[in-house]
């Protein structure tokens, strides 16, 4: 039996008839065609599918689309207005080489959005714990942490830390 759902994604309302077993990530990718949200595992481990549901970072592969009925979803595509300036986190990842292949990046950024909202000035340790639900196979995480620290400074209007590579 199909269920009719209405989900507001990046400010736009979408209505569709879906099977209950349709995952939110599949709804986002295949029904609405927003493919910035990625699927990286089958075990709710990797976090590449992370989106914001009513402002909370959630693994969209572990939610049914029907559960998002009447709710607001933000995907990576919704962070910056079309043609507009990048979100400080997007800019931070760009400036600080926070990605190689970019597969984990949308999930990382959306997780960091909630992280910084709850804790605008996190310590390095708080950032590392804060992204513990997002796996990266490429970078070794150091530049991801750096990107988030850079964005945190930018969002607080503080002087920006150096984007030069560090040798650890």
């Amino acid at each position: 039996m199909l269920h009719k759902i209405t989900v507001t994604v990046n400010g736009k309302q979408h209505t569709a008839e879906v099977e209950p077993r349709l995952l939110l990530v599949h709804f986002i990718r295949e029904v609405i065609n927003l493919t910035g949200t990625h699927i990286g595992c089958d075990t709710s481990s990797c976090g590449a599918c992370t989106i914001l549901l009513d402002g909370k970072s959630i693994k969209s592969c572990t939610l049914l689309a029907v559960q998002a009925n009447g709710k607001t979803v933000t995907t990576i595509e919704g962070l910056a207005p079309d043609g507009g300036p990048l979100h400080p986190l997007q800019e931070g990842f760009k400036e600080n080489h926070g990605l190689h292949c970019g597969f984990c990046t949308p999930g990382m950024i959306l997780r960091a959005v909630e992280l910084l909202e709850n804790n605008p000035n996190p310590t390095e340790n708080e950032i590392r714990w804060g992204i513990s639900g997002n796996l990266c196979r490429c970078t070794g995480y150091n530049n991801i942490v750096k990107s988030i620290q850079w964005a945190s400074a930018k969002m607080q209007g503080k002087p920006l830390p150096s984007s030069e590579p560090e040798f650890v």
Partner: protein
Amino acid sequence: MIAQSFNYESPNTLKEAISLLEKYGEEAKILSGGHSLIPMMKLRFASPEYVIDINGIPGLSYIKEEGGNVKLGGLTREAEIEHSELLKKHFPIFSDVTKLIADPQVRNRGTIGGNLAHGDAANDHPAAMLALNATVIATGADGERSIPIDEFFFGFYQTALQHGEILTEIQIPIPPKGTGNAYHKLERKVGDYATVGCAVQITTDNKGVCTYAGIGLTNVNATPLRAVRSQQALIGKPITDATIAEAAKFASEDCNPSSDLRGSEEYKRHLVAVLVTRMIHKAMERAK
């Protein structure tokens, strides 16, 4: 993978949810946080015909102090428990437990009710509930019933909850002065299930004699395990290195860990002794 087809219901009241559970019996599963159920359904380890989503029912998520107990609604999210100032006051163990559950995204959805009702000895809250001597409230068509935590866990994925019952509240007696509690689990990597986990709550009187000891173990038995002999080794005497060592030894002997990818049986027994020792010390630190 894709879950098998199912029917989805999202009742708006507890009464409606219970009557749906009664109607569908064995073929229905409650969807709470969904971060144990949905992964199992995706792998087709679980294929309920009816999924009853209780997330839309108001009044099931709360943390409050009432009548000498702290009471948590079954639908309270782990993230809320992690940051609750009320819980930190008497029960820093909750912070210890929740920050080790999976990761921040999972904690935004996972609920304490689901964590207990799933009946998995690898979940973290059960051991803490044993240490704290909690009571589970189950609500069914005939109303509420109280289930002491020692009568709650029966076996692999089996709890005392009957078809038609929902875990609606957890009650924890507020301990007297001179009490400390703590939890830790050793894991292969962040977010993993426990290799071994240990929850402890200790009360000592003003003469330093232990009047209460609750020790719960995670993932070293088919069910969450109370270290009964360890508790007995501590109660009625002052806490000393000798009594702690004895408690640790008993826990190591009385658990039933499986050799698996997280470690051999021998290794886990060793870790149980280590963690029991550490957590007794930590609980004692906090009792000051």
